[in-house]
């Protein structure tokens, strides 16, 4: 090998190396970024809380004062009511409004056993004042049995003042008016699951039977070749166009069910059409791997074509079909453009099939699109999405590896 050739070789290898390491670098920085920014906000309560904060008026039936021991952690900012066994602290929200947050509730505190009096479906239910609840007003009885109020809407505007007054004057607590924290993503998680469920319900039977028809039943001719080509092309259509098609055409279909707005159902119809090419392709690939000799064996034993498909071909294509399912799930979780049009961008805490809702990805879009972008929440959701999508993809890789090993005889 002469010198010039060697130099060229080295140059080529280094270019490959540089681009490869660039790719790895970008990937790692995305992860580091999302994990660093998102991990702080990510919590169990974020997963299970509502997004919208709600107002609650909770009655305690004039429960009398008692004597509770303050918690060991005595912090400067926290003020504890020995009479009723709970702590308060001052805080501010994003818009710099003053807040009074519940920081501790003792185990036997009467605050665990309030009754909701706000009108609505929850009226009359027992409710505990949750941690981080935003206390607006506390109504209590003083020594002369007069009803008095403290809290931001009452006489005192700081945690210290409110607790001090309760400790001096109160003999019983009558009612607490508070706001739940909000900022959670439970609704969007449910909406995502609903969308996944509905979409798979429609797209799997359609896609799998179409693939079976094309690969196992239909004769190989111009028409089926043409169908195949059309499906391939469908795979290349940008998702925003599917979204447009969803609102303009599929909307009429959901209209037949009496749905007049954007809805989870409309989103699932749109995703179904979007995912058909993926499912058909993956299923067909899974069918191709099943050796023809097995079909021959089955037919030669007097099995019908249908029996051959259901007893021999499909069971052996199952891992491939499973990976098609998992890939579809990860596509649904990651999709946003098509869903903004078809499911809307309004976050719903109790999503319904017939109403609009946001999936996790669209939730990010919504919290970032407002006047005050909530970057922390957005990265925390991104973290969840990344973990889910990555998990699904790794599972698919493992499955593929196992399939390949199985037929490597």
């Amino acid at each position, binding site marked *: 090998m002469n010198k010039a050739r060697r130099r060229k070789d080295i140059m080529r290898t280094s270019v490959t190396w540089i681009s490869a390491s660039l790719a790895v670098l970008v990937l790692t920085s995305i992860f580091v970024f999302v994990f660093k920014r998102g991990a702080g906000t990510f919590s169990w309560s974020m997963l299970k809380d509502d997004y919208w904060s709600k107002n609650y008026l909770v009655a305690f039936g004039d429960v009398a004062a008692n004597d509770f021991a303050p918690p060991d952690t005595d912090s400067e900012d926290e003020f504890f009511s020995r009479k009723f066994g709970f702590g308060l602290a001052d805080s501010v929200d994003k818009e710099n409004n003053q807040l009074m947050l519940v920081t501790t509730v003792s185990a036997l505190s009467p605050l665990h056993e309030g009754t909701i009096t706000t009108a609505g479906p929850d009226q009359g239910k027992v409710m505990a004042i949750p941690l981080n609840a935003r206390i607006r007003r506390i109504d209590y009885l003083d020594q002369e049995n007069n009803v008095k109020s403290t809290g931001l809407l009452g006489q005192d505007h700081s945690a210290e003042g409110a607790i001090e007054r309760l400790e001096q004057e109160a003999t019983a607590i009558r009612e607490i008016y508070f706001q739940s924290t909000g900022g959670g993503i439970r609704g969007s998680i449910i909406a995502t699951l609903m969308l996944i469920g509905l979409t798979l319900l429609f797209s799997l039977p359609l896609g799998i039977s179409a693939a079976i028809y094309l690969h196992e039943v239909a004769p190989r001719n111009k028409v089926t070749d043409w169908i195949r080509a059309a499906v391939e092309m469908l795979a290349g259509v940008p998702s925003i166009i599917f979204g447009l098609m969803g609102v303009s055409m599929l909307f009429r279909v959901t209209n037949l069910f009496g749905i007049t707005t954007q809805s989870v159902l409309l989103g699932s119809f749109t995703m179904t059409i979007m995912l058909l090419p993926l499912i058909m392709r993956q299923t067909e690939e899974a069918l191709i791997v099943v050796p023809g000799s097995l079909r021959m*064996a089955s037919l030669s034993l*007097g099995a019908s074509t249908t029996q051959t498909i259901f007893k021999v071909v499909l069971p*052996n294509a199952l891992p491939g079909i499973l990976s098609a399912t998992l890939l579809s799930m990860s596509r649904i979780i990651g999709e946003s453009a098509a869903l903004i049009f078809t499911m809307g961008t309004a976050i719903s805490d109790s999503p319904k099939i017939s109403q609009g809702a946001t999936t996790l990805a669209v939730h990010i879009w919504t919290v970032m699109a407002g006047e005050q972008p909530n970057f922390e929440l957005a990265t925390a959701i991104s973290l969840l999405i990344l973990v889910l999508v990555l998990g699904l993809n790794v599972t698919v890789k493992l499955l593929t590896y196992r399939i390949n090993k199985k037929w490597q005889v």
Partner: protein
Amino acid sequence: MLAFKVENLNLWYEDNHALIDVSMDVPRNQVTALIGPSGCGKSTLLRCFNRMNDLIPKTKITGKILMKGDVEIRDPSVDVVKLRTDVGMVFQSPNPFPMSIFDNVAYGLRCQGIKDKKQLSATVERSLRQAALWDEVKDSLQRNALKLSGGQQQRLCIARAIALEPSVLLMDEPTSALDPIATAKIEDLMQSLKQMYTIVIVTHSMSQAARISDQTAFFLLGELIEAGPTAEIFQVPKDKRTEDYISGKFG
């Protein structure tokens, strides 16, 4: 008695004339060997007997194959599925289903809609015994069939085919993927199976044809050159080309 009577059979794959005017008899309860150089149409003829050629698009067939004397097997009134339960097939390379040994043998019966457990296990045992595999697998019927050795797999495929109690067993080079010991086992097996079944076997081994078959048919480029009792074909071939092929001068 004849199992099959082939009359003026022609077969085209598109414009490839693969079988040319073939007429021959396949006697019952005998082993008939089909021999000839590669590409002469042996497998094609074999697949005509259970109509597996139906699955290959763009094939055209003329002529007749009469089964048990009078039934034309390509007649519209003949149910292919039923025909294939009566004419079993064993392929060149073992192709057990990736399921348990038991399920492999019971497959054909279950496709017939037979669910009775007793009947199934009785048939599985009988078939495995006839295929000389029972003693080796009787304690592990639930094992995956792919875990068996190549020779065992091929005997399993034979058991699977005879579980349906066919009258004919078609075998396309059933021992070409096997070692001499496994081959000997399968050859022994064929000798005992011919008491109950008519066997048509394709083979490239002259010695195998001579050892196991009662009848031999020699093909060349789609044409049947000569057919008759094996002893005659091997000792006093009428056609020069048969003699050349048997003595290894070409092929």
